[in-house]
């Protein structure tokens, strides 16, 4: 088995006194694809945001490759370079074209060589089918194209861990597929990913492990077949029932 890459231990997150995450612990091994599911407001997105310290936490710890990721700490920039994140809202910088969006952080944060990063960016754009849109501005792209660019932008930082926060939730159905295909491709390359999604079929296809969160706690942590066929908890059964439709006659 591969070594543990990310270690989340007893994570507690509170907003104004209400507890959103209540003692979350799990490990992610290198190359694993974790899908986090749960009903709206259960704290899935907050969990991702705590992993790269966009939110301060009130208890517990997050460690990546043995080093702590702490909100406001000195080495946070170094840790965040290793964690790529794609958000639900289209988060490209609207005043820059696609290639500048991708190159900004590798050039300014990592101080890498421009022609080298550019070549890599073009290669990645080609892989997601957008090599001809390098000079386009975000407003000229569809939602699915924007999300693919956001994924390339995250990849260009050479992250060891990728976080996807409901990246298809704001997309029209026909654009969901093109983004999910890119993510399946990444999983096939052996990337370590944590994915929050509402696409259950996709979750089952891509996950090595499913975490089901309810009321700020991990209720199930298991392989996808077990989760979708034989969930142990009643809460998970209820949750999965939402996705079954029966025609009433």
């Amino acid at each position, binding site marked *: 088995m591969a070594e543990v890459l990310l270690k989340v231990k007893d994570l507690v997150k509170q907003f104004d006194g209400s507890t959103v995450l209540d003692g979350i612990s799990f490990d992610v091994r290198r190359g694993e694809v974790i899908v986090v599911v749960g009903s709206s407001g259960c704290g899935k997105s907050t969990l991702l945001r705590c992993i*790269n310290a*966009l939110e301060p936490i009130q208890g517990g710890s997050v460690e990546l490759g043995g080093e702590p990721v702490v909100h406001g700490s000195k080495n946070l*920039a*170094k840790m*965040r*370079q290793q*964690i*790529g*994140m794609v*958000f639900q*809202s289209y*988060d*490209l*910088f*609207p*005043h820059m074209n696609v290639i500048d969006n991708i190159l*900004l*952080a590798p050039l*300014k*944060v990592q101080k890498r060589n421009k022609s080298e990063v550019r070549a890599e960016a073009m290669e990645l754009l080609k892989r997601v089918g957008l090599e001809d849109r390098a000079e386009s501005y975000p407003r000229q792209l569809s939602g699915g194209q924007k999300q693919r660019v*956001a994924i390339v*932008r*995250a990849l260009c*930082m050479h992250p060891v861990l990728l976080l996807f926060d409901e990246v298809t939730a704001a997309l029209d159905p026909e654009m969901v597929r093109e983004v999910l295909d890119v993510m399946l491709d990444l999983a096939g390359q052996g990337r370590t990913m944590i994915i929050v999604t509402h696409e259950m079929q996709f979750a089952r296809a891509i996950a090595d492990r499913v975490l089901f969160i309810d009321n700020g706690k991990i209720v199930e942590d298991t392989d996808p077949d077990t989760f979708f066929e034989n969930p142990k908890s009643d809460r998970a059964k209820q949750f999965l029932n939402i996705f079954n439709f029966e025609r009433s006659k």
Partner: protein
Amino acid sequence: MPDLGLDVLFKGKNMLRLLGGLWVAVRISLISVALSIPLGILLGIVMTFKNPITKTVTRIYLEFIRIMPQLVLLFIVFFSSTRTLGWDISGELASVIVFTAWGTAEMGDLVRGALISIPKHQYESASALALSPSQTYFYIIIPQTVRRLIPLSINLVTRMIKTTSLILMIGVVEVLKVAQQIIEANRMSSPNAAFGIYLVVLIMYFMICWPISMLARYLEKKWR
């Protein structure tokens, strides 16, 4: 058609003198705007801080400058500074100081508004890419703010150009003062010149301000 006294315009170097006066007005506005934009950006950033002290101080500055008539500010800087501080500053410098103080306040408020209108996820995705706070401001927030600001600050230029008509009160010879001088000098030979010359001044202000307004409207449409 009544005699408008327009012939005075073509006497000697009158037309050139008027244009020279116009240039004085435009130059003071441009220098003031060029100083107001960076200072206003700084002020606007400071105004978004949650610190109660900076909040109060910037608020008082903004309200003070806005409430005071520009003419009073000009008098305070030009006349009072000489008596109390012993400064011997030219009218033009006093104008630049007042217009910059005013422009900084107005720009600061515009910048503050533009900054708080930048969506939160722009800051977050910059953080997630490991950009430092100063890099985030420099590469992400300020360029977007400036785009929203350019049309607004161009409007500020036209307001400044119009307000320069006050600076003849502290002895700066700008277009309106030149017009008065020309009218005075020709009072006997062409008593109707007042109408014609002021009409020309009006057209001059319009010819300067109208294209600037059009440019602002164009940029606003283009960058929306």
